[in-house]
């Protein structure tokens, strides 16, 4: 309890270092917070905090009401945004955002309709009726992110809770010029304290400490008055020193505890919230008002009437400056945030976001924009003032040499960018900038390392997969080869290996020729087609050829089943066997065309024969017998040969088309062989028939 006793007595701790820059708070701390008229246009960046941006809920041209949610709370680290006033969404496009880089990001452009019509609200007078989880959800949906500067989503901070020893409310506001929290406390102390009560209810801490610097006597008075009858809350008045408002520094100053490097205050059972965040929480929970406005200190000697203002989120900076009497100087030097930790704005169209607490428009005398850096004289003043107890000078050497290992050894990531070292540096070295660059580089490097690791894993996985595929393919090939071999062997048993090999070779040659011709024909046909038809035609052709290939494949299958039989058939046909066998062969032959052709040939032969016999009969019978018969034979042979040739041609053509689609030449040659056989059979049939007819003729004679 000694910590609390000490605090009650008003004895606090000291943190290392710190500086006392000129405060310049007198510019704004004597005037009330002004409420501004609506600007002509509001620019709402989708992302105003640390984490991910939410999903858009609206589209261009939508009408929105004041307080309407515009993006979704899609992931835990996202924070929704809300319409600051009623109006129409004019555009959703990239625009310069409030970021030191001056880069663009997606923004919503809202044109106010000047009605300022609220969406339906349900105010909640007694938040104790709600469960803590309900309140956290409410806070999350109200889009509240830390308003002190970093913009960490508040609902994340307060929903991770082991037992909390201290809830610290940060009202120190140590940076020069800024008086936003000071004025907020003075004017809205009850609401702010309500916010603290809500946090108390949700987090159940043992003690609540409000840290405030002694240069805000009115605010201290207001706070003390508002917390008079709440025992748990202690208002701790700290001596003014920059950067008392730093999270770790304030914890050290109030409790004497030091947050270890690389850890969060929550590990010590401490949660810190900014006083402005408390106000926003109260507004959200009690009045159902999402975070759509904040107090912004508009200050600097370049302004005629510097003042704190209630600025709607999305108000362009130039509107605020205009309202406060800005006289543009030649080198427009605008700073968002305080003079120590703020950053220069790329232009004055940048909107106010949730973390903007100050707009500084300094005169030339106040802030020099020249870089007068000279060499380090090793005076060591920077190390004296560093609140994180680092060695800024050593860090600087390593940062300039880009020695990332050494930088991390020197705990660069404990640097809070407070700028105290740069402030005291007699050589005017912009130390903080060097650290910021180094930090960004190290983060980038870490990201690249992660990516490289990922790429490596993916590459290895791919290699493995390809290998497996290769093995699988080889196995398949092997199997197929074996199957082929087996079928070849079977055929060889049939005893026609020599002839079939020759036939196969012939067929291959023919198929090649035919395919070449077919390809040529194809080409010709394609070139002849009007260009717009190519697609459909080639598709049709593709479909046709696919269908043909399928047919062929079917045929092949059927034939393969019958190879042995057919091989026999060839032999038998050669040795002039009976018609039965031939018929059987025809049955086996699944090629319809071949059968039709055979039928045609038969019909032709018959008619030809009949004609000849009719012719012959009335003519001389005995002497010319031999002549006619020989003539007949010649004719028949010619016919059959022609038929066979035609058939062959048709088949070759078909083969060619099949081959275009199906590049498995071995299979094709197999088919060719079958075709050859069929042709031979057909020839044999023709011959045999011719002979039979001749016999018949002789008999009729």
């Amino acid at each position, binding site marked *: 309890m000694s910590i609390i006793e000490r605090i009650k007595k008003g004895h606090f701790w000291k943190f290392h270092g710190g500086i006392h*820059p*000129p405060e*310049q708070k007198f510019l704004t701390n004597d005037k009330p917070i002004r409420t501004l008229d609506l600007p002509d246009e509001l620019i709402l960046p989708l992302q105003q905090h640390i984490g991910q941006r939410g999903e858009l809920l609206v589209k261009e041209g939508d009408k929105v009401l004041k307080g309407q949610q515009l993006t979704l709370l899609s992931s835990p680290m996202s924070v929704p945004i809300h319409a600051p006033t009623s109006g129409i969404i004019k555009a959703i496009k990239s625009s310069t*955002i409030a*970021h*030191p*880089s*001056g*880069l663009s*990001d997606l923004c919503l452009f809202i044109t106010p309709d000047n009605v300022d019509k609220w969406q339906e609200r349900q105010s909640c007078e007694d938040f104790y009726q709600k469960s803590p989880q309900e309140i956290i959800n409410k806070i999350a949906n109200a889009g509240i992110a830390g308003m002190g500067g970093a913009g960490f989503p508040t609902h994340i901070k307060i929903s991770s809770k082991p037992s909390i020893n201290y809830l610290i409310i940060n009202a120190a506001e140590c940076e*020069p010029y800024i008086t936003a929290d000071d004025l907020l406390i003075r004017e809205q102390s009850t609401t702010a304290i309500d916010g603290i009560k809500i946090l108390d209810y949700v987090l159940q801490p043992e003690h609540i400490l409000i840290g405030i610097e002694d240069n805000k006597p009115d605010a201290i008075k207001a706070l003390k008055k508002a917390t008079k009858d709440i025992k748990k809350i202690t208002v701790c008045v700290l001596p003014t020193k920059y950067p008392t408002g730093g999270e770790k520094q304030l914890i050290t100053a109030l409790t004497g505890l030091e947050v270890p490097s690389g850890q969060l205050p929550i590990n010590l059972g401490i949660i810190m919230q900014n006083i402005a965040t408390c106000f926003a929480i109260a507004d959200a929970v009690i009045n159902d008002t999402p975070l759509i406005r904040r107090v912004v200190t508009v200050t600097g000697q370049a302004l005629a009437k510097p003042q704190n203002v209630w600025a709607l989120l999305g108000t362009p900076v130039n509107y605020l400056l205009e309202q406060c009497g800005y006289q543009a100087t030649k080198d427009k*030097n605008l*700073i968002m945030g305080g*003079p*120590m930790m*703020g*950053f*220069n704005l790329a232009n004055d169209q940048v909107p106010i976001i949730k973390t903007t607490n100050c707009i500084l428009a300094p005169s030339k*005398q*106040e*802030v*020099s*924009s*020249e*870089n*007068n*850096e000279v060499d380090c004289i090793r005076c060591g003043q920077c190390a004296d003032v560093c609140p994180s107890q680092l060695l800024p000078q050593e860090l600087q050497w390593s940062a300039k040499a880009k020695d990332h290992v050494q930088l991390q050894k020197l705990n660069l990531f404990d640097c809070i960018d407070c*700028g105290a070292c*740069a*402030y005291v540096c007699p050589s*005017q070295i*912009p130390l903080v*900038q*060097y650290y*910021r*660059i180094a930090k*960004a*580089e190290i983060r*980038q490097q870490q*990201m*690249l390392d992660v*990516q*490289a*690791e*990922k*790429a*490596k894993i*993916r*590459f290895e*996985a*791919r*290699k493995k997969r390809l290998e497996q595929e290769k093995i699988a393919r080889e196995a398949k090939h092997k199997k197929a080869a074996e199957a082929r071999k087996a079928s070849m062997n079977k055929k060889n048993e049939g005893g026609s290996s020599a002839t079939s090999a020759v036939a196969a070779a012939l067929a291959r040659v023919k198929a090649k020729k035919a395919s070449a011709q077919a390809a040529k024909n194809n080409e010709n046909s394609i070139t002849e087609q009007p260009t717009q038809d190519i697609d459909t035609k080639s598709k049709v052709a593709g479909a046709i050829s696919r269908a043909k290939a399928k047919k062929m494949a079917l045929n092949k299958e059927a034939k393969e089943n019958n190879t042995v039989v057919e091989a026999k058939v060839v032999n038998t046909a050669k040795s002039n066997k009976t018609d039965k066998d031939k018929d059987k062969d025809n049955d086996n032959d699944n090629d319809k065309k071949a059968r039709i052709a055979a039928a045609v040939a038969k019909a032709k032969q018959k008619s030809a024969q009949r004609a000849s016999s009719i012719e012959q009969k009335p003519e001389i019978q005995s002497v010319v017998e031999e002549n006619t018969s020989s003539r007949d034979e010649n004719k028949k042979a010619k016919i059959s040969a022609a038929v066979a040739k035609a058939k062959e041609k048709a088949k070759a053509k078909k083969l060619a088309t099949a081959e275009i689609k199906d590049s498995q030449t071995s299979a094709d040659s197999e088919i060719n062989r079958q075709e050859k056989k069929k042709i031979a059979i057909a020839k044999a049939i023709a011959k045999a028939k011719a002979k039979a007819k001749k016999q018949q003729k002789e008999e009729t004679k």
Partner: protein
Amino acid sequence: MTTLIAIVVLGIMASLFGALLGFASIKYKVEGDPLAEQIDNLLPQTQCGQCGYPGCKPYANAVANGEAINKCAPGGDDTIKKIADLMGVEVQPLDENHDQDNSPKVAFIIEEDCIGCTKCIQACPVDAILGAAKQMHTIIIDECTGCDLCVAPCPVDCIEMRPIVQTTQNWQWDLNTIPVTQLD
């Protein structure tokens, strides 16, 4: 006589020491070299093959066995420096055969021109291209290493390398844009 003794004594000593060293060389035999693994960890893992090896790992092995350390174009001077540190050799400038421009890039498929030939998918070493035959392909930007291996196989030249867009996430502080803020 003394000379003979001297020769004999030295000879005996020499052979003794020789035996000792021979024994030590067997006893302290080094198997495998963890160097390749360490080099591999330094390489950017783009698997681009610009070094003449089919991936980062083979190049790492080659470097461990005496290949030049300056052939990794995507890694650039940083990687060369790191490898030099690890190997204890001098830093060399990047091999002249490579482009000097090694700013980070990602591939981008101009989707109107894509005919769906899948050639780029087969070329991608990290499976960062999505698509099927006769369907339009696209690049998974987060997985693309910018190796540009997919550019050459494309029959319609619809793939191009684009520099990574600068966002607030990957933005680097630039010293010159922010002046010192010093108060009187």
